[in-house]
């Protein structure tokens, strides 16, 4: 395996309620390698988003990381002071949230939202920041004129690509994507994920991809971890997981994938040529 970028060691996260606590992540250890796409699959409430939040130490009470280490270049980020953490967030590890297209500020133009991120994390001048924003928009194939639009003027898929572009503007080493395409329809979903793959080849970053859609994950990720009740019950590369699942829960998830009758069909290719 390649050199790990981030290592999670024996992590436990608890939600404290009154005098009780609920352990959402139970003693999880996990490595994310350089330029790897790692998937975490599981039902809602299994702890996959809680785990992702820990990577940026973003938890707020009542959630507490009660045990474990998160090593970034052999340094435990959980011990870092806030100002060091703030520099680390976004510039080293970026995050695309669930329903990310609604995470844009509705009353600010898109260029402003790029400038915000770049002003906070870099020493770029305004002109430099704008040319960086233009570069990123070109990278995700959105016309430059869109930079001066408001989020509501863009379609859902476009907004999602803009969020990814903002996330990539600081060239992070890892991007966490928490259900990035659940609100989009399948064609747009495939367009975006295919684009992320393309960008990954160009820019070389790692991705932690979180979803409950195992079919999508099997297509998109290099390695996949299956989470259940706060634990990773199985962790394998995509082909092995699909062909030789060991845990009964993994098999259950695989059987529940809709559209099995459509897999590997020949009409997939080629799509018909049409003249516009």
């Amino acid at each position: 395996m390649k050199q790990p970028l981030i290592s999670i060691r024996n992590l436990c996260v608890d939600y404290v309620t009154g005098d009780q606590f609920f352990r959402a992540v139970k003693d999880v250890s996990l490595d994310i390698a350089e330029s790897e796409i790692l998937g975490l699959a599981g039902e809602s409430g299994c702890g996959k988003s809680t785990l992702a939040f820990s990577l940026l130490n973003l938890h707020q009470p009542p959630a507490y990381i009660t045990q474990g280490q998160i090593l970034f270049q052999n340094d435990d980020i959980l011990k870092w002071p806030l100002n060091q953490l703030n520099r680390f967030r976004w510039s080293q590890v970026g995050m695309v949230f669930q329903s990310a297209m609604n995470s844009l500020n509705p009353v600010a133009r898109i260029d402003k939202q790029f400038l915000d991120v770049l002003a906070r994390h870099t020493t770029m001048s305004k002109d430099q920041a704008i040319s960086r924003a233009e570069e990123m928009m070109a990278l995700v194939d959105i016309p430059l004129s869109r930079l001066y639009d408001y989020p509501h003027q863009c379609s859902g898929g476009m907004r999602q690509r803009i969020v990814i572009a903002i996330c990539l503007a600081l060239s992070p080493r890892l991007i966490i994507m928490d259900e990035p395409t659940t609100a989009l329809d399948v064609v747009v979903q495939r367009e975006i994920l295919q684009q992320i793959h393309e960008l990954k080849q160009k820019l070389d970053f790692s991705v932690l991809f979180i979803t409950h859609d195992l079919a999508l994950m099997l297509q998109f990720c290099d390695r996949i971890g299956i989470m259940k009740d706060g634990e990773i019950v199985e962790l394998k590369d995509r082909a092995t997981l699909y062909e030789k699942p060991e845990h009964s829960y993994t098999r259950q998830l695989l059987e529940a994938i809709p559209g099995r009758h459509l897999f590997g069909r020949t009409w997939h290719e080629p799509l018909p040529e049409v003249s516009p």
Partner: protein
Amino acid sequence: MSVLLSVQNLHKTFLQRQGLKQVSFDALRGISFSVEAGQALALVGESGCGKSTTARLITGMMPASSGSISIQGTPLVNLKKRRQRMIYRRAVQMVFQDPFGSLNPTRTVRHHLERPLRLHRSELSKVQRLHRINALLERVELTETDILSKYPHQLSGGQRQRVNLARALAVEPSILIADEPTSMLDVSIRLDVLKLFRQLKEQQQLGLLYITHDIATAQYVADETAVMYSGQIVEFGSTEQLINHPQHPYTRLLLSSVPDPTRSYQALLEQEEDFRHQADRIRQFSRRPGKEYRKHADNHFVLLQE
């Protein structure tokens, strides 16, 4: 077999004000279909293609610009009298996408199931109502004890959607419209809920209109499928036939985008590098106004476009 729901050449135009001028947007451009008792039709398409607008017109939540809708042979025209509206609402019920948002968070499951019975079946006594509620819960496979006294937040997404289904079935509708009933549920429980829909449709001879963006799930519920794009039905046929022999480029685009674990994105990138541009071209093509439907096979029609 009897036709429960028939929709003829339905048009809907929305007017939007943009500054001083009014801009019109054609959400539906001539939609026709029918649903028979015990049959399910899937309306498949991306967000914004007009599938939910169709549902809203059928439920009478807003008027159509032109075209006709009839339920069991009775045309839906402006239902002015309360009595008319009640009869109509009893015949057509709907299950919504968001299982939490469509239940009142301050009310128990019992309230949600009792209210439609009180409104539409006022002749039932208290005991009869309770019997009916229990029968409904059994039908949607909600067998947990004390479920009646629970609040929506105490239930899982799948259970909430079952409550919604029971609520819709309480008044014994002849037509059930399900607008993306499983898109907010975990993939792992989607199939169970879809199978329940299918089972109920067959047992009670309901006409089911299943609205979805996920063509992969259509086969579990629907006998027939209509693929919509930009306010038109671009392809229509038996689900089996349509999925196995898709004709319209947009249908093929939809099918090629269904997540398929056997094809990695790495491979897709090499094979279909041009996918995004192709997708754009197909969308542009599919937006053109239609001329007529070409019959491809028995019960399989494709829209010919200009």
